[in-house]
């Protein structure tokens, strides 16, 4: 058997009666970086939100480490949630807490570590994303890119095996965005963290992605899966080849 850490099985995703995606199946291997791609409004965020159990899919299942996040409850769900970390497009840091307190929060909630240990861990996580000098700042006192990185630090507080990132580089300048790519690669290589990333940034896709899951609004599902280069050069679909080239060689 392959070493799949996430298995999405015949998933139907949507909001109430409004079906956005149906029959979506794919696997993510351990320590792989998968990018979910597709046109605006095709359901990337929707897919991500269903994969992390924020919404209950009407049909299908999502397994993380072989356990269903859809059907788990109580302690079991807790354990699954602690094995994953998520950053939201807006950062979603707790505005009333400092960066350090934000990172501490999951530790406070789920571990019995003494307070000074939590402080140290929080500072270490923040230093991984280059923010060790800002532990005492409130989210509103740092820049948007710093908030994004702090959110990643918070998502890593409990050493998750998987990180889900929704548009981590949206609204960042190319340099910061490239730094974020390097951070993702570093975490992937040194800690073996699996990444599922929604992004539109083609340069960063070519830098980080092992595989790309290309969604299609028309068929409400996956158009194709493959490495970025495969999709660019060998896709059967003209539009996918175009899509994968557009920003690399602007017309």
């Amino acid at each position: 058997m392959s070493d799949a850490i996430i298995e999405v099985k015949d998933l139907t995703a949507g909001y109430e009666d409004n079906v956005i995606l149906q029959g979506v199946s794919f696997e993510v291997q351990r320590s792989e970086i998968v990018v979910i791609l597709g046109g605006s409004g095709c359901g990337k965020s929707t897919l991500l939100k269903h994969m992390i159990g924020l919404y209950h899919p009407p049909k299908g299942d999502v397994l993380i480490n072989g356990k269903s996040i859809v059907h788990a409850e109580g302690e079991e769900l807790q354990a699954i949630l602690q094995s994953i970390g998520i950053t939201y497009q807006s950062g979603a840091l707790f505005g009333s807490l400092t960066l350090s307190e934000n990172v501490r929060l999951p530790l406070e909630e789920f571990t019995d570590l003494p307070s000074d240990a939590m402080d140290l861990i929080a500072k270490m996580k923040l230093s991984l994303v280059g923010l060790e000098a800002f532990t005492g700042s409130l989210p509103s006192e740092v820049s948007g890119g710093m908030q994004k990185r702090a959110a990643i630090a918070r998502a890593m507080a409990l050493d998750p095996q998987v990180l889900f990132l929704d548009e981590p580089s949206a609204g960042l300048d190319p340099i910061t965005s490239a730094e974020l790519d390097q951070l993702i690669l570093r975490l992937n290589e040194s800690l073996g963290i699996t990444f599922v990333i929604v992004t539109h940034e083609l340069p960063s896709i070519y830098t980080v992605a092992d595989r790309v899951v290309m969604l299609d609004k028309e068929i409400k599902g996956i158009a194709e899966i493959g490495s970025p280069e495969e999709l660019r050069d060998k896709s059967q679909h003209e539009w996918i080849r175009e899509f994968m080239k557009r920003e690399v060689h602007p017309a």
Partner: protein
Amino acid sequence: MPVETKEEASYRQEGGVVHLSGRLDAEGSARLWRTIFQRSHKKRDAVKSIDASGLTYCDGAGIALLFALSRQTKASIDHLAPEFQKLLDQFSSDSFDRPVDPPRKISAIEKLGMGGAEFGRDLYDQVVFLGRMSVVSVRTFFRPSLVRWGDVWRIFEKAGVNAVGIVGMIGFLMGLIMAFQSAIPLKQFGVDIFVINLVALAMFRELGAIMTAILLAGRSGSAFAAEIGTMKVNEELNALKTMGIDDARFLVAPRMIAGIIATPLLSIYANLMGLLGGFIVMMSFGFPFAALYRQVTANVEISDILSGLIKSVVFGVLVAGIGCLRGLQTRSGATAVGDSTTRAVVSGIVLIVITDAIFAVIFYVLNF
């Protein structure tokens, strides 16, 4: 020197041909729009073609006019300068003709019914939520390691301690005014010593609790709704959920606990300040302090004080709970948080008054 000629947009109809000329900008189009459509409506069949050769300028509004005119008359537009033609070609009649689902017409009676059903459902939600949250809060309270005491204290300080000034002032003024207003008529009967009974009983049984609760609904219920609502809009609530942290325990319980502690304390304080107001008025009418004190201690029973206290605990639950509920119910968008705070205050006050009425009946039946 060349003078820029601003040739006004004009409209002329000769036989089946409409001639448009001049500067068809927003101003010109606005002037022509109504006359053109009134006229072409009357002689719709008459218009065969539209001659646009005289147009010197045409912007978005002008294009809209040409588009509307050709669509209504089904006439062709001729001799439009190519740069304007390009603008016009971006819009095809087909995509505009596609029928948009008309919003279903709802009769007034149906609306009334729907409003009623909505109100009922909402009230039901509120009661269910309050019940669930009370259970969570009590359960958390008895497992102190789960309570975020730092938050409880911070909220208690903001909602309780910082409200001391306004609650005290309003309580004092209420006692003062009540005593003053009732002293004059009661004096005619020579029973003005009973004014202090009235003030004490009214404050302890009713007004202290309800006034404090209403103040808290405006001050803190709205603040709770705004805080939690903002967290919802910022996806912070999603972040909590996917961290596996229960928002009821994390956000609602500290607020409910703080509310349950703060409301009775503030009510007692309001009662005492009301009494102080009454005493001041009565002493200014010449009654000695000792007489007033005796009057109050002889006539206010422990049940009067208790009934007010019980109510204020329940009001605390209502105010804090509804504030949190409205925060959690916040939808997305910039106005959502504002709506939530308004709804928190309104529903808080409505529930306080309804509950107070229920208590009045219960206490009456129990002879409490």
